[in-house]
């Protein structure tokens, strides 16, 4: 079938302003949007720039706004889009470097701010720490995060307020706060207990809808909010 791709493009070395470029090409219903972008890059215009690597939704490189929603280009098939006209834009709330490539620095800064690493200064056991499958299950969902930024850049609060740490950082914090082996929970809760932390979340659910790893993010953020509330009372 034929598809029309409208891509929001911008090359700071050439263009004064971003513009919409249109490409018409032959695609297959089972093509990933990423395949089509490659086709455009490889056959029509080599200068089209975007990030990608794994092509199956595991590395988190290719978050973009596809038909008005944040997705991984490698996880949406043409047939999912229900139409032949596809718009592609860079994710919002981060500055555009070139075409679909945005500056991810603020995103990773927020990630690092929640101390996203295991904290336990006790002497390590000779073998593994024991953890029951039930305890392991509590934080299972948040271990799936691939830091693609689909969530944070779909959050209406983040669009206007870049100082909000954002759902991705909270998911990462949750992964440790609720790990029975970790001892840094209080410190992380303190980090998130400020007006740039969980309290900025207005439960808009865009993050949950956008997450390609099906992490129930809003719920995860809610758990953290309650953890702060109950540990402070």
């Amino acid at each position: 079938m034929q598809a029309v791709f409208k891509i929001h493009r911008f090359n700071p070395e050439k263009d004064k302003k971003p513009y919409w470029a249109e490409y018409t090409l032959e695609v297959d219903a089972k093509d990933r949007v990423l395949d089509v972008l490659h086709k455009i890059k490889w056959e029509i215009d080599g200068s089209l720039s975007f990030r990608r690597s794994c092509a199956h939704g595991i590395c988190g490189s290719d978050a973009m706004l596809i038909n008005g929603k944040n997705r991984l280009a490698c996880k949406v098939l043409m047939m999912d889009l229900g139409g032949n006209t596809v718009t592609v834009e860079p994710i919002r709330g981060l500055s555009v470097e070139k075409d679909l490539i945005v500056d991810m620095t603020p995103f990773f800064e927020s990630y690092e701010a929640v101390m996203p690493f295991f904290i336990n200064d006790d002497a390590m056991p000779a073998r593994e720490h024991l953890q029951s499958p039930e305890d392991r299950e509590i934080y299972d969902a948040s271990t799936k995060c691939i830091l693609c930024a689909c969530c944070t850049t779909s959050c209406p609060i983040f669009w206007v307020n870049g100082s909000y740490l954002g759902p991705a950082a909270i998911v990462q914090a949750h992964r440790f706060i609720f790990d029975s082996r970790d001892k840094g929970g209080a410190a992380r809760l303190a980090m998130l207990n400020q007006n740039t932390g969980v309290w900025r979340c207005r439960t808009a659910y865009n993050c949950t809808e956008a997450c390609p790893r099906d992490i129930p993010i809003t719920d995860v953020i809610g758990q953290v909010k309650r953890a702060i509330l109950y540990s402070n009372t």
Partner: protein
Amino acid sequence: MYKGREGQWAFFLHRLSGVAILLYLILHTVSIGSTMLGEEVYGAVHKLYELMPFRLGLIGVAGAVAYHAFNGLRIVAMDFTSWGVKYQRQLWYAALVMAALFMLLTLYANLPRLFPDIFTYKTIWGR
């Protein structure tokens, strides 16, 4: 516009209605409170309430308050119950329906007061 779903619109409307009713609250406080400045002042300020656009707007305010109130309950349910997040979409539709009902009630009560020539029916509360 980002193609968010219910949650996004719930939030936008909540924020919008919140700010709107805050503005109205300020106005309302000043106008009603002006009774303490005497009958003349009150009367002058209260003229506002006789203007048609204002009276129509008030029905909107009632709807906004009702939406904000019911969606506020939805937020509280999401924050503190085990089922709130799971049924957030249904809860939002419920909040919309409740708000719509409240607004319809307001409309029903106020239309004959606003347009006595067109709406001649009598509400149980009179005009």
